[in-house]
């Protein structure tokens, strides 16, 4: 009897989630919700050991990079030699040179696998994706195919359906973002082609192909699952990080105490 009641309650809760979450919206798979990557790609897209972040001894073990496996198909990023040298320079200047440290918008695809959840809004027209870090967001334009007249931090994303797969092409980013905290980078010639495939109501498979002949010897692809936050109280919380970057950006320009 108790087991039957328990099953009944479980079914009722699952049913209320179903009523809130249609499987399809306007005839398409329903991507609405809050999603998050659960990996260390935001530290380093390629395989990496656990290690200390140099220069922050007072943070102790908090200032450490966790180990992680590569999300790059084939393992490593196929850099041109000069672009690989740029990555080495980036790593020497990290974290201060990382646009993330300055609270700059992360660009595509870095916004997707950042360590904060993001939210997808899908009705019967353009989709919207909202990312808390630096209050970034992007429209996925489903019919507007006009070019961006000028490069921007998030570029312009055009979406189309390949049966039940949402395919998003992003161009006209300005090449000033990084791809992760390990100095991986691209130029303004980058075209990103993302594929979002629902695996069920709470999981999607995310792939992103990066094509940038100025930086890489060939296009390459990252892949990872994204997990939907199922807590009914889940919501995005703001991360307007400009005040956290003030010290880094303006430390040399502070009025020094004791000067007139």
């Amino acid at each position, binding site marked *: 009897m108790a087991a039957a009641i328990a099953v009944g309650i479980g079914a009722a809760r699952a049913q209320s989630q179903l*009523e809130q979450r249609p499987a399809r919206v*306007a005839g398409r798979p329903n991507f609405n919700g809050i999603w998050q990557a659960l990996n260390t790609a935001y530290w380093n897209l390629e395989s990496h050991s656990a290690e200390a972040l140099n220069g922050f001894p007072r943070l102790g073990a908090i200032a450490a990079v966790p180990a992680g496996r590569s999300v790059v198909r084939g393992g490593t990023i196929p850099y041109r030699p000069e672009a690989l040298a740029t990555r080495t320079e980036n790593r020497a200047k990290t974290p201060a040179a990382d646009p993330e440290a300055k609270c700059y*918008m992360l660009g595509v695809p870095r916004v997707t696998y950042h360590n904060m959840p993001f939210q997808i809004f899908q009705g019967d027209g353009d989709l*919207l994706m909202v990312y808390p870090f630096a209050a970034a967001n992007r429209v996925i334009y489903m019919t507007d195919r006009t070019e961006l007249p000028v490069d921007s931090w998030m570029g312009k994303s055009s979406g189309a359906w390949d049966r039940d797969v949402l395919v998003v092409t992003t161009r006209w980013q300005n090449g000033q973002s990084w791809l992760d905290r390990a100095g991986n980078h691209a130029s303004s010639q980058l075209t990103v082609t993302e594929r979002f495939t629902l695996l069920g109501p709470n999981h999607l498979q995310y792939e992103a192909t990066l094509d940038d002949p100025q930086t890489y010897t060939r296009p390459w692809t990252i892949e990872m699952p994204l997990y939907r936050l199922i807590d009914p109280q889940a919501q995005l919380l703001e991360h*307007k990080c400009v005040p956290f970057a003030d010290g880094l950006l303006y430390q040399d320009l502070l009025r020094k105490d004791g000067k007139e």
Partner: protein
Amino acid sequence: MRERVVASIVAGLTILVSVSLAGQSAKSAAGWTVPRMPDGHPDMQGVWANNNMTPLERPKQFGMRATMTDAELAELKKKAEAMMDGGDAFFADELFNAAIEGQTKFSSADTQVGNYDQTWLSERIWDNRTSLIIEPPDGRIPALVPAAVERARAENVARQAKGPADRAQDLSLGTRCLSYGTPNIRAGYQSYFDITQGPGVVALRSEMIHDARVFPIDAGPHVSKAITQYHGDSRARWEGDTLVVETTNFVPNAFRLTNTAQLRVTEKFRRVAEDTVEYYVTLDDPATWSRAWTLMIPLKKTGEGMFEYACHEGNYGLDAILRGARAQERGR
């Protein structure tokens, strides 16, 4: 199967109710009915602009009159248009108020450094309202409570004790590219909004510093008071064809005028015509104003997209302000 039957019955009822409410709307043009999303709620998606010329506060000469006569409007428009000579840019209420005061040449408040000129501005739209504020009936922001007057005085004293730019944190939220105020009610510059609707949620994205505010519908209580945000925390519901959004949990000073964390904002969005969403904003902060006040902005549909405004990424101005202050201190 049962869920589908229930869903279709609910959808059918929703459509019946929505049709009868739409019939009661006195503001729709004859023959126009509000387009609807698949879930039956009004479709307000798209890009909407606040380029209205109506000032926030009613100039005192209009007294209790909510509208001007056609003749008054024509005269004011003529005076304002005479100042649209490509010179200093005017934002929000500035040109309207200059025309009211009988000025013949518009000058920016900041005369020391170069300023935007009028090529940066959106075209402004006139109507015959004398103020955006509709409550209180005098069309003006209510008096500050004594505690707020004291706060403003204390902040002023603290500011005088410092230089104008000792640290980045001494400058305004706008100058630092954090926020131009939530809700954003300044007209005429990046005053564009993009509404996206999904099941159970609405997002309002503004061009001004690319903010996206999320309005979950029927989502239960606000977050704990321990969490404050520049956007506050929003909860929405539909009342017939009107989207009602309640926002609390504001960071102090998150609105463009002084406010405390007690601020409660109630916004209402109602699409009344093909090209118009009426946007009502009620601001209630008992630690700031002696009573709640409400304004209404008619948002107009544009056929345009919004552009990225990467304010912080391009904030050379703040760097220059700090460098200039340091140079002045060194006597150069």
